[in-house]
């Protein structure tokens, strides 16, 4: 099977008052149709910037995509002009965000926003677009969809707004859906509903999903493959099963060990990763994780380790692993 999305050497930088911030450095990955790829990392690792780069939504200035290709079914999105990219967004590649309240326009009804998206890309009549919008709302399991379509975002709960945003994103059946922390702002019970919804729709429509998250539990539940990012670079990649069973990179090992798990020993201490994420405008030489790494050896602080296959279907950028 050929991947529907192929990212190669993506590099994005920001010019700020404190210097040049290398938000995304030489990131490459691919996603097959109908597959869920998770991009995992903490704040400052570059995962959201990667997502925005794929959609070419990087605020410019001060940001700039300085290198790489993003091929959607063979077409390089970075090489398109503005009009070409606009045609792609929504119809071929779509994105949903963490905070649905700011992603939906408060001045228009939900139905209108979805219908607008549809008629923009498919040129059908307003009436057809409206009924398609109601269909989509039903598809995302919103009860009484005709009534809801006439409501404004502030009249809906957080979970419902998130579903409306999913409806808008998938209305034109894009090939790739990027979900940037879609459930982080939701309550636990609602989170489960929304995750299942995304997963079911993915199977039904054959959409490839790129899921950005910091929650390893979410990754374990829905992702087929995952990449781990740290300080702007990809440091580990592989199937979810392999990475959870035997994490290679000390960062992932540290992350997994630091999460409280049910049924752990009474009064046990959580394993900490000491220190903090390095500032992206002042990265240490060699491996960016070395200052915090329990397994660091000499070469780690001098030369950056390349990404290498450690096992079948499992790669990591580490001298020690």
């Amino acid at each position, binding site marked *: 099977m050929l991947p529907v999305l192929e990212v190669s050497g993506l590099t994005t930088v*920001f010019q*700020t*008052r*404190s210097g040049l*911030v290398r938000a995304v450095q030489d990131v490459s990955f691919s996603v097959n149709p109908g597959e869920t790829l998770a991009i995992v990392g903490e704040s400052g690792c570059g995962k959201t910037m990667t997502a925005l780069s794929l959609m070419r939504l990087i605020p410019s200035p*001060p940001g700039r995509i300085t290198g790489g290709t993003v091929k959607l079914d063979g077409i390089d999105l970075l090489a398109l002009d503005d009009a070409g990219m606009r045609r792609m967004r929504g119809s071929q590649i779509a994105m949903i965000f963490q905070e649905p309240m700011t992603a939906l326009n408060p001045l228009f009804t939900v139905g209108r926003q979805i219908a607008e998206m549809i008629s923009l890309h498919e040129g059908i009549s307003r009436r057809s677009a409206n009924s398609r919008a109601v269909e989509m709302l039903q598809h995302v399991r919103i009860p009484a969809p005709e009534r809801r379509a006439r409501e404004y975002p502030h009249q809906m709960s957080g979970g419902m707004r998130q579903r409306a945003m999913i409806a808008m994103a998938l209305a034109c059946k894009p090939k790739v859906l990027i979900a940037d922390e879609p459930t982080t702002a939701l309550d636990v019970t609602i989170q489960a509903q929304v995750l299942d919804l995304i997963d079911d729709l993915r199977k039904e429509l054959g959409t490839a999903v790129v899921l950005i998250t910091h929650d390893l539990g979410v990754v374990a539940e829905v992702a087929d493959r995952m990449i781990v990012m740290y300080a702007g670079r990809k440091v580990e990649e592989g199937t979810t099963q392999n990475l959870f069973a035997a994490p290679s990179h000390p960062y992932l090992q540290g992350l997994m060990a630091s999460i409280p798990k049910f049924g752990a020993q009474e009064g046990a201490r959580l394993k900490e990763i000491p220190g903090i994420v390095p500032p992206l405008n002042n990265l240490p030489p060699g491996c960016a994780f070395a200052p915090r790494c329990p397994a660091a050896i000499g070469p780690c602080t001098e030369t950056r380790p390349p990404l290498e296959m450690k096992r079948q279907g499992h790669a990591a950028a580490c001298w020690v692993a």
Partner: protein
Amino acid sequence: MREALYYARRYPLGVAGALILIAFVVTAVFANVIAPYDPLTTNARFSLAPPSRHFLIGADMMGRDMLSRMIHGARISLAVALGATCIGSGLGAILGLTSGYIGGWFDLIVQRIAEIMQALPLLVMALVITASLGPSLVNTIIAIAIPLIPNVARVIRANVLSLRELNYVEAARAVGMRGRRIALVHVFPNTIAPLIVLATAQLGSTILTEASLSFLGLGVPEPYPSWGRMLSDSAAEYLRSAPWLVIFPGVAISLVVFGANLFGDALRDILDPRQGD
């Protein structure tokens, strides 16, 4: 210093505004030194003299050197602008801070008074004040300061209302800090930045207001040179015959107000946390 240069590069218009204001202030402060002649000395012989080597931008109908009058006029405008802005913003800030922090009926009453003040037209108020107190420099400053108070009070009050809910204010209460102390130590220092921006923004409008009042004869009285009054004295009769009497004061007013606005805008953008990277 490096930060100042960084901002200077990103906000060239703000720098332009700042330079205009600096020139304005320097002129006002060193008026006695810079001005070639005494602005008040009249000499009928030189009445309406056009620009020449002696009178660089001409003389007015009473033979007074325009350049010297312009330079001293800057001093008057600056005095009025600074005085009115300081008094107006200062009182407005105190009112906004207390009414926002204390709340309750005190807040309700202060708000209604502020609304009434805002409803009165500026010129009517100025007329009432100068009519009852007599025209003078000080009264002009008071007349211009008064409408500023409710504007500043509202903005500061809104700011205080949101600051009051912040966690660190709650933490101070949890420690047992008294209300007055919290207002002084935690709330007020965080209103200074918006206050400065507001005051700078008002600067331009106070200069314009003084010019308007003086133009109408309600502001700074004779013999103080005021740009506004220089305009009113000459605009009707001498526009064709001695245009230098009208052009220079008009341009000066526009330039300074423009500079104040540019600088105020840039300052507001810089201090707005959401503009950060």
